[in-house]
């Protein structure tokens, strides 16, 4: 589903964030991306979400070669990926419903379908009663759930998360991880960047560990 082959990423200031990275993530797999701050986790996720492009090598996602994907096709490519962020990236002047509906509105879904799928998505993250609230009225954990609901509302093949539990206490973090597991169980490929070792060591998923832009080791359980 996600395949990196000898990928390098150099920034204009000659800083090399990723050096000769190769790995493969299977369809329907759930994996963690770990490593210290500055190890290249965010850069790697940015390459998958096409926020950045690699300097050398090849990135294949869902059978598409991202190196050759023209700029105008990027929006359509991104619709196949659900993104979850540490700071949620919600729109604060819109209700929870409107936030979750955004990907569907962008994709041009009709009104009835949007209502149905937004409610289904909010139901999955346990926020069905809060659809009329503004994000600011919700707790940090709830805001993250809204972010997840938005990421999965158009049923993406891949779910990417960058430090989704970074601002949450252990209990809430565990809840969020359980949510990701549920989505993985219905076939979504889930890839989570995190440095929350205490949490992920209790979970039976592969870890892809980065160290200074290279693959440090692989743990398959």
């Amino acid at each position, binding site marked *: 589903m996600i395949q990196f082959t000898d990928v390098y990423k150099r920034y204009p200031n000659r800083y090399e964030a990723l050096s000769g990275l190769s790995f493969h993530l299977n369809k329907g797999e759930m994996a963690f991306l770990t490593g210290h701050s500055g190890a290249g986790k965010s850069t790697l996720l940015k390459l998958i979400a096409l926020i950045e492009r690699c300097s050398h090598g090849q990135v294949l996602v869902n059978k598409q070669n991202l190196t050759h994907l023209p700029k105008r096709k990027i*929006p*359509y490519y991104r619709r196949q990926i659900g*993104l979850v962020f540490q700071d949620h990236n919600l729109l604060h002047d819109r209700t929870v419903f409107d936030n979750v509906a955004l990907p569907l509105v962008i994709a*041009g879904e009709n009104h009835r379908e949007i209502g149905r799928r937004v409610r289904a998505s909010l139901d999955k993250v346990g926020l069905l009663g809060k659809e009329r609230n503004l994000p600011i009225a919700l707790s940090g954990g709830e805001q993250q759930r809204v972010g997840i609901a*938005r990421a999965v509302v158009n049923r993406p093949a891949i779910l990417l998360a960058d430090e989704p539990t970074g601002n949450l206490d252990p209990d809430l973090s565990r809840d969020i991880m359980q949510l990701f597991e549920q989505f993985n169980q219905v076939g979504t490929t889930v890839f989570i960047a995190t440095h929350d070792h205490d949490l992920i060591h209790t979970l039976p998923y592969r870890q892809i560990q980065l160290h200074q832009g290279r693959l440090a080791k692989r743990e398959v359980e």
Partner: protein
Amino acid sequence: MSLSTIMTNYFLRHVQVMLFSLGQLWRQPVASLMTVTVIGIALALPAGLFVLQQNMTTVSEQWDDSNQITLFLKTTISQVEGKQLSLDLKKWPNIAQVQFQSAAQSLSEFRQLSGLGDLLDSLPNNPLPAVIIIYPAEDIVSPDAIGSLLARLEAMPQVEQAQLDMEWLQRLRSINETIHRGISILAILLSLSVLLIIGNTIRLAILSRQSEIKVMKLVGATDRFVRRPFLYTGFWYGLVGGIVAWITLMLTLSVISSPIDELIGHYGSNFDLQWFSLTMLTTLPSIGVVLGAAGAWLAVSRHIHMIEPN
């Protein structure tokens, strides 16, 4: 999905975005009102001048057929000689009509119009000459033809002076033309400023929504999708600005119309300022919409694609 469903969806989406942008303006009433008022004033000014100038043109056209030459006869010419001269002139092919007015008639007309009867009475004799008013033939309209007729008349021994009553009208037309061009330039400059005002307002709106735009692009929004609400914002600014311009214009003109009518009344014309204009009610908002959309386009085409998630 059938084509008609796709079309309906597309149309509905546009209506939604349109209302969404209107709602956003509504939620910042003071800022929106200020922008709209500036646009309104900028559009109303040239439009108002244009209306006045149009009225001026109408007036000068009304006087178009009053293309006449006044011959002031020498005071040595007697009334009989003057009458005879007018009969001779009537036979000229390039003269359609003549009208003789004796010195005594000139005096009584002047007494009536000027109200200076007492002063005239104190004069020893009539200072006014006899006058022949000449209406040229219908085909004598070009300045050249009228000029040569005028020269021939002026050269006659009985004539003290031949005066073309058109001259002041031509002057009026030249003034009118000058004003017209001035207004056109002013209109272009003010339209440009409306364009820039809207462009700048939209630019600020884009910058203030930068993080929102990034989020939208992250969840798969095309540039076109991000652009749309801003274009509609420009549309609303232009439309409402145009309506404000119309209201401003109508209020202003209704206030100044009666003194203008009175002023023109003093020149013996029963002129009525045509100030109420429904055409303007469609024209001003249309111009506003075009300028608004164009200004918004300027802003979005420069800024939207530069805002990328990072």
